[in-house]
């Protein structure tokens, strides 16, 4: 860096540049929030789906699974599990309900959460709702 480029010029670029991009980012975030109702399937968020999200969070499902590609990479992607399971919430419930307490020998295991029938319905509805968000066609195929 040559002599004519001073520290205060560098500082001004920092302040001006950051201020500009913070502002632009906030404007785009605002625009996103306005555009979301078209994409995020919010008209289908029932009390049951809301409870499902709570069950999802209270049991830290995201600590093993990814959901829309975010989370952990130890167990299958679940944003499209509703489609993978033949659009059946019953199949999802059945899978969660039937996990053995002591796991499956030698295989990556999912805990038995002892969810109530209401919670099972809710989390399955939550996964169904998630699968219907417009996420630009991700994942590439049914395997997630």
């Amino acid at each position: 860096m040559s002599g004519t480029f001073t520290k205060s010029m560098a500082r001004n670029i920092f302040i001006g540049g950051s201020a500009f991009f913070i502002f632009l980012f906030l404007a785009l975030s605002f625009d996103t929030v306005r555009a979301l109702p078209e994409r995020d399937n919010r008209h289908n968020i029932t009390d049951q789906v809301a409870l499902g999200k709570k069950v999802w969070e209270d049991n830290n499902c995201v600590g093993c699974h990814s959901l829309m590609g975010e989370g952990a990479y130890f167990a299958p992607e679940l944003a499209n599990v509703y489609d993978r399971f033949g659009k059946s919430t019953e199949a999802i419930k059945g899978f969660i309900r039937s996990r053995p307490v002591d796991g499956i020998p030698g295989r990556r295991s999912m805990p038995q959460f002892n969810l109530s029938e209401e919670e099972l319905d809710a989390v399955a509805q939550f996964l169904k709702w998630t699968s219907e968000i417009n996420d630009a066609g991700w994942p590439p195929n049914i395997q997630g």
Partner: protein
Amino acid sequence: MKYQSQLVAKPYFIAAIGLFIGQIIFGLIMGLQYVIGDFLFPEIPFNVARMVHTNLLIVWLLFGFMGSAYYMIPEESETELYSPKLALALFWIFLVAGALTIVGYLAVPYARLAEMTGNDLLPTMGREFLEQPTITKIGIVVVCLGFLFNLGMTVLKGRKTSVSLVLMTGLVGLALLFLFSFYNPTNLVLDKFFWWYVVHLWVEGVWELILGAILAFVLIKTTGVDREVIEKWLYVIIAMTLITGILGTGHHYYWIGAPEYWQLIGSVFSALEPIPFFMMTVFAFNMVNKRRRDHPNRAAVLWALGTAVMAFLGAGVWGFLHTLAPVNFYTHGSQITAAHGHMAFYGAYVMIVLTMISYTMPMMRGRAAANSLKSQVVEMWAFWLMTVSMVFITLFLTGAGILQVYLQRYSDAPQAFMVVQEKVELFYWMREYAGLVFLTGLLLYVVSFFIGGKEHAEQRA
């Protein structure tokens, strides 16, 4: 060490190293669960080990940043810390709160922990990296406020340098952005959108300011190059960081329901994000080449140069690898992500904290400017063991990731997740072995602190 109060950094650094060891042990547990699925099941399910691993990482890095700030700010401001007592009190509060949270993860099922800590009152739990009970999150905010107050008062009464202003900006940004962790709407898309305000804007925004400031400080001290030159570099680097990194957030908005213009914005700006990391590398090597003196603490200089290189590799190169939307469509949420996450976190933030510890600890322990040569040699061995094994961990995960993406998402006959995971098992075994080497390096690092306490390195400066 010029000011007595800088010593409060010491407990922070010791705690950081202790928690680091815990983090790695849980990393190894998970690494084994990847290949022996029922290892420690149901006692420590994978998700619990993962929370412990990642939360310990974040907490020890925060301890490291705080210790670094408590050391740097008095020296930069040329005055004693406003309140060393407050700093020490906050240390214990943070340590106890952190320990209780980890114990909570391990002792009771997560759902029970959520219930016990009143998560329903203000639900914030159960999201990646933000698993802490709401009350712990409030504790973190309180500790941050006290910390920023203490530092702010110190800066105000003393000399104001660019290094301390950049550091303070980074730390204030860290605290402010963390507030988004309290926003958890029912709408998953909104939840995810603002979750990245914490996670991305931390590691690819304000934390880079902290990284830059610490690196600048250590380079000023160890090379003796004129502060004006170093601070000018610092401003240019962090300007590029925020110019590219803020809109770069878009690389997380491709497939979570946000409008599709983010594919273009995110790709363009995040593709530029390696620039500040590259500048950091050029900067560090330039300053060391132009050094006015040979600092006796060669280990610290090695850590500083290592940070600059590994941050560029992990964040810059491995970030670029999967950041363009058409590539990310296939790699999103795969082992490629994990490979990048490991090298970036290690190269940028683990290494900068270890740089600062390496530079300051000898002085805080009354050993003049550096440890004995013997101790430094062991420390440098630890540097190489950890760094090289992290390179291998990254390469093995990248190998697993490429196969995973091909078999599960790209080939003509895509296979199920669990089937593919079994096929790439060999890579996970090799990752685990590399992890054991990493642990060896870390233990050697701890050993280096106990070597040659009596003999000081001769001053060549």
